[in-house]
């Protein structure tokens, strides 16, 4: 038997790939990786069990993937897919069809929460439970080993039963857990799978040689009977599954049953559940048996069809108290699905007399959105079962002070075997901690007899992210499907964690603690806070330090400290002899990076070799000597909600917050990112006022609003901090007499350097010195933080005073700040600019993707308010429906506007003189002075209404704000606009409604990791386009132009901000739909984004990204609607393409294909240019408008 150390996704994908011919997928967390593996293997030519390379196709959505699956099945192919959550929901209609047609098919679900009050990428079973009516068999697995095995069993049984199978395992917990498992060989699979089943499936295929018709429409006379005809297949399914499981056991020695019972043969208390939680319950039951308890656990493998007989047989007759646990929530239901099945089965058996005792059954929810499920919780459930009057419905894992459903849990309980070693690592996303921990697990799993497990937790930031790795290893199999509570080894890979979290909360007695800090071993102790020192002293920990950053830097690895820390871990954890461990590490470096090139290996090996010389033990004194406590996580002036809720979320203590702390409907305050001080930059931009030319380019390009410029009345700087330098505004006549300052937000800057890159002002005697320069943060942080606080409260000058040109626009207050986007993000500056233009009158409908994660992922969110408390209001519905969401907002809003006007009309005669015209005159969102007057008028109206006692007065009072125009923008990425949401986007444009759509086009699915979209350019390598995309990028703009009534612009802000500001303002002022396609440099392009302005310019100059504006208003002026803002091709397509890894990769891999695709891309650009030139030259003759006039107002039919 061969052991592999891998994660659940890879284990499952490996089986599914080998047993399939057609794989139709669509990326979705946490299942994307399965599809990516399949794509990689196909790209490498790896065959399936029948010697063919499966076709792996990425569709435009899961709905599309499901359709393709259905079709491939009808053609007689062996088909699989991988999905989760919303993706599964999109597949549902086809799943009913596939099951209804009895097509053998097995799909794999990394179970994930369905978005309700909020999106969550984490695990529960709400997705699979939504599919329980489809007619699919639902097969659950609880560990990486089981996931692999059940995948094989699922594929085998569907061929023999014709009932399609949905195999599910827990997202992240199982899908991303690395574990050492006994791998299934090709021979194992050959023996397991019924080749007759394959033959029979093929024989049912659609072929004109033996034509049939399927998918008929049936009338009341036929449908019902036909539907009932399917029953025998479900009746025999359990038996067939059992047979396959028995055959599987014969091959592998691993015996599964439909229901696996663990525990006392005469147990009186039993819990029932499925998925990874059952592994934790298994471990706990074994521990309780040792304590002499008569308890048991029933693991459900097959949820549907529910095999009642087998269930009853598996449950000991002695059971008196039963707890059924569901990892899903169905509000208002009598109980969650598993509880209902179990209760029904027991009731029936008891009423038939087949079962003497009807156990008392209680049902509980656990683990929603990957909430931890621990042995302590399992014990709490068994305790509850003992109670005279247990809660019939309960929750475990939260503290419910609203409905009082939750069980109390003793979180101190630790039942893990001392033989299992546990290690915790706090790392930064970019420092490679998780990668090297994965490598360590592989070293232990594959190089020793030990069992090993790795689980990785990420926060939701895309820059300066925190990762926590949980590693277990030891001589016993590891069932602990929960995070480590007591770690013998704790490594803190960045010093800032010491100040941010209680990093030693889970350090065990006598733990070894390893710190990476830039301090000498002599000064370390005195630099630690009271909290850290106290734990070290009280738990008698041993403390080791290393300046890993210095070691890595010396080896030429910059901040990538992972191999250095890995060596220290092995040296201190004492699992392998040191030399052996180091040899393994070097081998793993060679294996992982060898193909990248010898230099990468050499530098990593050098880092490994110098690591231990720099590792030092620091003696831990017997008492705490520090007086400094850990700084508060949010500033003292933060609002109450931030203090009470956000602070705990930031400290990693959110799960201790009770239910009552949370809004029940997903409504959260905006403007919270300002309270999360992340301090992730090593260097920040510092302003040199003497050189500054006040161009505001820095503020324009900053992806994090961490450098801003402002003009203000000179008297308002009274009381400013000493270092608060200001200069007179000198560049804009309209702003004469005001003062000017550029301010950095030191704790919010990511250090990307874009601001310095675009700064045009140089010291003529020292050209290295610009008007802003990157400086080490430590020498400026305190001063600039104080300056920032003063800067933020400076009163804004009236909005209408600031000219609407690209140089002055950054002076408007940004209402989007300090997001968690990647350093150098090319998307966020567009959003920030949009909020500067119309933020105080803006409703946003946001598609799921990067922009919804940095835009709306807790703990803090970046959309904020101005001094009047106004700012963007934001909602993310789904990935696919942002345009529809926005359209609905527009329609709903307009109705309220209409109602407000109707009510106003009723008061027309009574209103004070002049107020009615003031409230009804023309006012648009781009007319600042009209907006200001309208707001004043609304205030007057409110004051006037206050005395009126009629219901109409109250209603108008509440709707009065709608008399001021609002702007609705839809924001999303290219995955939304070009693929999954294209239908809705197209419809929104067609509707003619006043709705603006901003496409942040990164040319790949950025959020899920670089899968190709229809926006991916020709010649680029992306996931699912590993050979380089061979087709042209969809011309979304041209499609939108074809309507003739849509404003369309293609923009590129990093290099052409003047054009961008023009286009955004034209779109905003256009009374109808507008589509803005925004070039967004992204880390998925594979280059240093500090060069994005220059690289984007190449994209524009090569016509890879032409700039244009299509304004239907121009038609009525007798002008061509299309204006080409890029005319000539100034650089070659190659000059653009060769600068990005996504193209360069192809050149390295297949130089000839690269040349061909460069030539084809160049040709495509030429053709597009010629077409656009002709379009831009079109002249429409003035024409009679009678038809158009007549049809006006009927456009909604």
């Amino acid at each position, binding site marked *: 038997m061969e052991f592999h150390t891998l994660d659940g996704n890879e284990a499952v994908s490996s089986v599914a790939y080998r047993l399939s011919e057609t794989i139709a997928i669509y990326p979705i*967390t*946490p299942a*994307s990786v399965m599809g*990516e*593996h399949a*794509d*990689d293997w196909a*790209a*490498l030519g790896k065959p399936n069990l029948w010697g063919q390379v499966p076709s792996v196709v990425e569709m435009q959505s899961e709905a599309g993937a499901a359709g393709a699956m259905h079709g491939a099945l009808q053609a007689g192919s062996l088909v699989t897919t991988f999905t989760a959550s919303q993706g599964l929901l999109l597949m549902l209609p086809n799943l009913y069809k596939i099951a209804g047609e009895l097509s053998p098919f097995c799909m794999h679900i990394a179970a994930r929460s369905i978005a309700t009050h909020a999106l969550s*990428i984490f695990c529960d079973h709400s997705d699979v439970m939504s599919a329980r009516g489809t007619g699919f068999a639902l097969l659950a697995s609880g560990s990486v080993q089981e996931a692999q095995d059940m995948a094989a069993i699922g594929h085998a049984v569907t061929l023999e039963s014709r009932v399609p199978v949905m195999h599910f395992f827990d997202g992240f917990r199982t899908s991303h857990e690395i574990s050492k498992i006994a791998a299934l060989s090709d021979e194992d699979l050959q023996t397991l799978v019924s080749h007759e089943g394959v033959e029979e499936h093929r024989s049912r295929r659609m072929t004109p040689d033996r034509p049939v018709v399927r998918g008929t429409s049936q009338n009341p006379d036929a449908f019902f009977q036909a539907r009932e005809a399917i029953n025998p297949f479900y009746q025999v399914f359990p038996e067939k599954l059992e047979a396959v499981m028995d055959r599987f056991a014969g091959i592998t020695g691993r015996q599964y049953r439909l229901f696996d019972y663990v525990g006392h043969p005469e147990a009186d208390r039993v819990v029932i559940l499925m998925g990874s939680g059952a592994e934790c319950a298994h471990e706990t039951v074994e521990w309780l048996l040792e304590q002499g308890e008569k308890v048991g656990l029933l693991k459900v493998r097959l949820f549907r069809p529910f095999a009642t007989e087998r269930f009853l047989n598996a449950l000991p007759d002695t059971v008196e108290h039963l707890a059924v646990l569901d990892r899903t929530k169905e509000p208002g239901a009598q109980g969650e699905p598993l509880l209902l099945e179990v209760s029904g089965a027991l009731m029936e058996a008891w009423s038939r007399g087949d079962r003497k005792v009807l156990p008392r059954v209680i049902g509980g929810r656990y683990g929603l959105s990957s909430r931890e499920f621990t042995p302590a919780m399992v014990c709490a459930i068994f305790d509850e079962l003992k109670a005279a009057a247990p809660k019939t419905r309960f929750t475990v894992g939260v503290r419910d002070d609203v409905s009082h459903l939750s069980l109390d849990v003793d979180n101190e309980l630790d039942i893990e075997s001392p033989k299992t070693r546990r290690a915790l690592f706090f790392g930064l*996303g*970019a420092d*490679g901690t*998780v*990668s090297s921990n*994965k490598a360590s697990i592989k070293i232990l799993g594959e190089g020793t007899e030990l069992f090993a497990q790795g689980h*990785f937790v*990420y926060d939701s930031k*895309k820059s300066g*992210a925190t*990762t926590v790795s949980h590693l277990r290893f030891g001589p016993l199999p590891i069932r602990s499907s929960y995070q480590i509570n007591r770690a013998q080894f704790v490594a803190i890979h960045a010093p800032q964690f010491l100040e941010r979290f209680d990093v030693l909360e889970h350090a065990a007695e006598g733990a070894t603690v390893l710190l990476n800090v830039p301090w000498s071993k002599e000064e370390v102790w005195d630099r630690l806070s009271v909290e850290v020192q106290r734990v070290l002293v009280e738990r008698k920990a041993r403390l080791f330090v290393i300046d890993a950053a210095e070691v890595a830097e010396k080896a*030429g690895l*910059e901040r*990538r400290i992972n191999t250095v820390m890995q060596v220290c871990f092995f040296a201190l954890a004492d699992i392998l002899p040191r030399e052996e461990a180091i040899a393994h590490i070097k081998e793993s470096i060679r294996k992982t*990076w*060898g*193909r*990248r*090139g*010898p*230099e*990468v290996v050499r*530098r990593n090996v050098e880092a490994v070799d110098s690591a231990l010389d720099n590792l030092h033990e620091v003696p831990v004194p017997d008492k705490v000597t520090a007086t400094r406590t850990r700084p508060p996580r949010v500033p003292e002036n933060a609002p109450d909600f931030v203090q009470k809720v956000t602070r705990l979320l930031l400290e990693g203590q959110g799960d201790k917050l009770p239910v009552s702390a949370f809004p029940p409907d997903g409504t959260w305050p905006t403007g919270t990112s300002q309270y999360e001080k992340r301090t992730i930059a090593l260097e920040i931009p510092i302003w040199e006022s003497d050189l500054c030319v006040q161009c505001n380019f820095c503020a324009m390009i900053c992806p994090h609003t961490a450098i801003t410029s402002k003009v203000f009345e000179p008297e308002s700087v009274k009381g400013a901090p000493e270092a608060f330098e200001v200069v007179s505004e000198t560049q804009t006549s309209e702003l004469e007499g005001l003062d000017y300052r550029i301010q950095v937000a030191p704790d919010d800057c990511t250090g990307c350097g874009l601001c310095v890159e675009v700064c045009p002002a*140089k010291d*003529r005697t020292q*050209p290295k010195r610009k008007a802003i320069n990157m400086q080490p943060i430590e020498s400026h942080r305190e001063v600039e933080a104080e300056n920032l606080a003063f800067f933020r409260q400076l009163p804004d000058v009236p909005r209408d005073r600031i000219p609407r040109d690209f140089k002055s626009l950054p002076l408007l207050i940004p209402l989007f700040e300090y997001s968690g986007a990647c350093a150098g993000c090319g998307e966020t500056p567009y959003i920030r600019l949009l909020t500067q233009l119309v933020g105080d009158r803006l409703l946003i409908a946001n598609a799921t993707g990067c922009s919804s*994660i940095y835009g709306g992922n807790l703990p803090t969110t970046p959309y904020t308010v101005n001094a009047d408390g106004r700012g963007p209001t934001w909602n993310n519905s789904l990935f696919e429906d942002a345009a529809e969401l926005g359209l609905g907002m527009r329609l709903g809003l307009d109705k309220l506007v209409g109602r407000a006007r109707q009510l106003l009309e009723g008061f027309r005669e009574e209103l004070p003189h002049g107020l009615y015209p003031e409230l009804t005159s023309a006012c648009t969102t781009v007319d600042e002075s009209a907006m200001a007057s309208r707001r004043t008028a609304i205030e007057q109206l409110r004051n006037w209404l206050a005395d009126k006692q009629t219901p109409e007065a109250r209603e108008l009072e509440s709707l009065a704000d709608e008399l001021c125009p609002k702007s609705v923008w839809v924001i999303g990425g290219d995955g939304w606009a070009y693929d999954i949401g294209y239908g809705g986007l197209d419809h929104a444009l067609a509707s003619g409604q006043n709705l603006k759509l901003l496409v942040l086009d990164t040319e*790949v699915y*950025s*959020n*899920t*990791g*670089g899968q190709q979209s229809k926006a991916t350019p020709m010649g680029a*390598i*992306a*996931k*699912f386009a*590993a050979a380089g995309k061979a087709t042209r990028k969809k011309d979304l703009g041209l499609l939108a132009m074809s309507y003739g009534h849509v404003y369309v612009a293609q923009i590129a802000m990093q290099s052409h901000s003047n054009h961008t500001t023009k286009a955004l303002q034209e779109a905003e002022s256009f009374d109808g739909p507008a589509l803005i396609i925004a070039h967004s440099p992204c*880390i*998925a392009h*594979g*280059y*240093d984004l500090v060069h994005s302005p220059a690289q984007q310019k190449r994209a524009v100059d090569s016509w890879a990204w032409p700039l244009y504006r299509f304004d239907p208003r121009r038609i009525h002026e007798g002008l061509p609607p299309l204006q080409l803002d890029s005319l000539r091709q100034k650089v070659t397509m190659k000059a653009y393409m060769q600068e990005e*890894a*996504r193209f360069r*990769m192809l*050149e*390295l*891999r297949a*130089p000839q294909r690269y040349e061909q695709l460069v030539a084809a891309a160049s040709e495509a650009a030429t053709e597009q240019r010629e077409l656009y030139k002709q379009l831009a030259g079109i002249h429409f003759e003035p024409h009679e408008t009678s038809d158009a006039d007549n049809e006006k107002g009927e456009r909604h039919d």
Partner: protein
Amino acid sequence: MTELATRWLGLELRSPLVVGASPLSDDLDALKACVDAGAGAVVMHSLFEEQLVEEQMAAHRFIDSRINMDAEARSFFPESELFEMGSDSYLQRLELLRHSLGVPVIASLNGISAGGWTRHARELEAAGAHAIELNLYDLASDPEETSEALEQRQLSVVRSVAEQVSIPVSVKLSPFYSALPAFVAGIEESGARGVVLFNRFYQPDMDLDELELSREVVLSTSAELPLRLHAAAMLYGQTTLEMAVSGGVHSGDDAAKAILSGASAVQVVSAVLSEGAGALSRITREMTARLSGMGYRSLAEARGVLSMANAPNARTWERLNYARLLHGWK
């Protein structure tokens, strides 16, 4: 007609005109045209170790560092894209040229580490290079390193490469050595077979509007030739190394002068870059006409006849006369 066959680095060339190291190595069709136009051999552009290292590290920094840092995106590129960003593509190109051109293909190498020089030299040999031209592009900028130390370092590179490979090795030199003959003697002793006179450095220009440096490639002109002729003439007879002149050859007379000063081969780049392969047939035609007109039956007859050892007014090569010449202008 003068017989143009010559020996360069022990290779029998049908013509002394060699396509020098240039971006032309990426353009197979252009090189084929050069061969059709009479090129005797082709030198590939340099395998720059520094560039390979930089690219590997950039990939490590911008691609590998973005793996396993995010819950949703495991990585941003397909896994199968993890392949060597090393010398592979250079070596493949070398093999392609060797199979396609029908004239010797000389690989050029510019290393930065001791290990890099020898490792890549072995790779080039294995890939079938007929010879290796070492590009000692090494600007002295460290005040701690003396010229002696720098020269010793360079000689040790030459020695280690010559020891590692059995194909001939030539060394492309910078014009800036205080004692060129002595250094060339050192090269000879280190095991090289020839020297190329000289490297042309891509010297940055200044962008006065932006107050920064700009990088543009400036093609050579015939005005750069005398420096090379002078060096070849001086070295001819003093060393057994074969010499090639590189830089400033734009006409048949330029090439003839190079031969007369003692060169065995003449590298041409700028003329081909600006004129295309036709430049080579033109230069061949002009050179043959000139040398034939002068009565030489073979290149060997012409080689070095105006070198310092052989020229009737050999002192003209020396600096003293330079001053007199200038005075003569008055």
